[in-house]
């Protein structure tokens, strides 16, 4: 087996999710190479070469990869994929955007968001918002895989000394151009890697009230998240969203405040180690998954919680 893992990065740092995808590759077995594509990203390639157990880092350094546009990146993956049995990427919006495009160009199926490696050709993946787990066996010569990061530990970022080999792409597709990126307002602590997350739902009633959660988060060193209802109501931006269509996270402690617990929200947080629910509706489904439930008015309970910490 030979694995190629696509490295997600912002030209400065390797995304933490990539280390989880590398662990999935380790479980498949065989050699692991990495692909770094970007512009002026030699530093990222050097960091990638230090990850434990990597054979070769393939570096495509070109202005056409500056913004990770799917068309150019997919063509590069297709060119690089030929000598591998498995191509993996973390199931982030970066991976989900490019991997199916590369898979289709190779005429291979994609196996989305694996949570377990059973063998080199058999994987477990969640379906129906995680309410069922399907074990699937692939007959393709190249397995194109996205990896659900919370299901795999992070690989060691240090200890390796891979060689770096330069490769070049197919040129610019000319199909799309990057315009701008809105800077995230959720710049405190990364939701996907935070040890503690406190999330608000529709019950928060307003954008201003989220500052109450932020105050608790500051005391706990936690990240702030939200349900889709809170995002749709305009209380917080989309990048806060936890759930089937947002981020899937598994912190040590997840505190759900004013969140009813729709199937779609549970899909994003039910693997958390400890779940706390604070809601004034004792019938809210969130209490069925909570380790500790507090039936209370959040506008009284949250300031009290902040004071008690």
């Amino acid at each position, binding site marked *: 087996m030979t694995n190629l893992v696509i490295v997600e990065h912002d030209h400065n740092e390797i995304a933490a999710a990539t280390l989880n995808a590398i662990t999935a590759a380790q479980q498949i077995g065989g050699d692991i190479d990495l692909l770094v594509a970007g512009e002026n990203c030699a530093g990222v390639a050097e960091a990638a070469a230090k990850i434990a157990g990597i054979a070769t880092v393939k570096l495509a350094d070109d202005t056409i990869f500056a913004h990770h*546009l*799917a068309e150019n990146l997919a063509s590069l993956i297709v060119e690089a994929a030929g000598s591998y049995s498995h191509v993996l990427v973390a199931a982030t919006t970066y991976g989900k955007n490019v991997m199916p495009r590369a898979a289709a160009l190779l005429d291979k199926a994609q196996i989305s968001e694996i949570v377990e490696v059973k063998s080199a050709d058999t994987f477990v993946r969640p379906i129906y918002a995680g309410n069922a787990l399907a074990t699937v066996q692939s007959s393709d010569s190249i397995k194109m895989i996205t990896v659900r990061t919370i299901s795999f530990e992070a690989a060691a970022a240090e200890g390796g000394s891979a060689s770096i080999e330069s490769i070049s792409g197919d040129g610019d597709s000319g199909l799309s151009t990057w315009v701008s990126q809105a800077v995230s307002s959720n710049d405190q602590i990364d939701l996907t890697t935070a040890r503690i997350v406190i999330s608000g739902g529709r019950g928060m009633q307003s954008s201003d009230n989220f500052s109450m959660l932020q105050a608790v988060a500051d005391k706990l060193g936690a990240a702030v998240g939200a349900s889709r209802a809170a995002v749709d109501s305009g209380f917080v931006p989309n990048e806060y969203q936890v759930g089937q269509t947002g981020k899937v996270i598994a912190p040590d402690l997840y505190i759900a405040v004013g969140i009813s617990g729709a*199937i779609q929200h549970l899909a994003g947080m039910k693997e958390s180690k400890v779940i706390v629910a604070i809601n004034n509706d004792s019938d809210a489904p969130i209490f069925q998954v909570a380790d500790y439930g507090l039936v209370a008015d959040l506008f009284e309970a949250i300031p009290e919680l902040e004071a008690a910490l």
Partner: protein
Amino acid sequence: MKILVCVKRVLDPQVKARVKADGSGVDLANAKMTMNPFDENALEEALRLREAGTAEEIIVVSIGGGKTEETLRHGLAMGADRAIYVVTDEVLEPLAIAKVLKAIVDREAPGLVLAGKQAIDDDSNQTAQMLSALLGWSQSTFISDLKIEGESATTIREVDAGLETIRVKMPTVVSVDLRLNEPRTLNLPDVMKAKRKPMDKIELDSLGLDTANRLTTLEVIEPEGRAAGVIVNSVAELVDKLRNEAKVI
């Protein structure tokens, strides 16, 4: 411009999926089915583009068997002009679906293809990207804003870090997220009118495509549930439990 909107019939999002006792899949017999929610957003966007004069014709397409026609009629009632129903009893994987959709695009030559970013049954999140690849078109995924400007379109993508704006060449394939718009509700006259709108039925086999599945599902199981927790009576008790019992703070 002609717009093709890809729609899928799925288990109603409010219904919890029940795994069959024999581990062969999810039990859909007698279950409430609906149009995939993201696909409704895709169709709504197409309708708005037609209302704004950017598009003239909207075609909804679906691939499946059973009562898939019902889902297409729903799309027609929302306002699509006509429907294409590719009939098969096989459950196709996203790659095969993309091949079928490419064949439809080749016939209809739309200027824009809209699809939901993922179907809420298999949660694959692949079809739009695969279709775009097979067509050699541009793609924008997970979008919450779309502006067509002649030969190009500007889209806002919902990405992990925030919002990304890109410009794509037309024709293009776009996968949409829920915040793009609020789909309209149906009224009875539109439902009645939809019954008379044209629907082309195409047998999958007649397209002559390789739609063989690459994955074999060996087993479908229900994940382990969480053990029931406890209700605490006060914030003080909660903090005590988190500190001394769960030891997470």
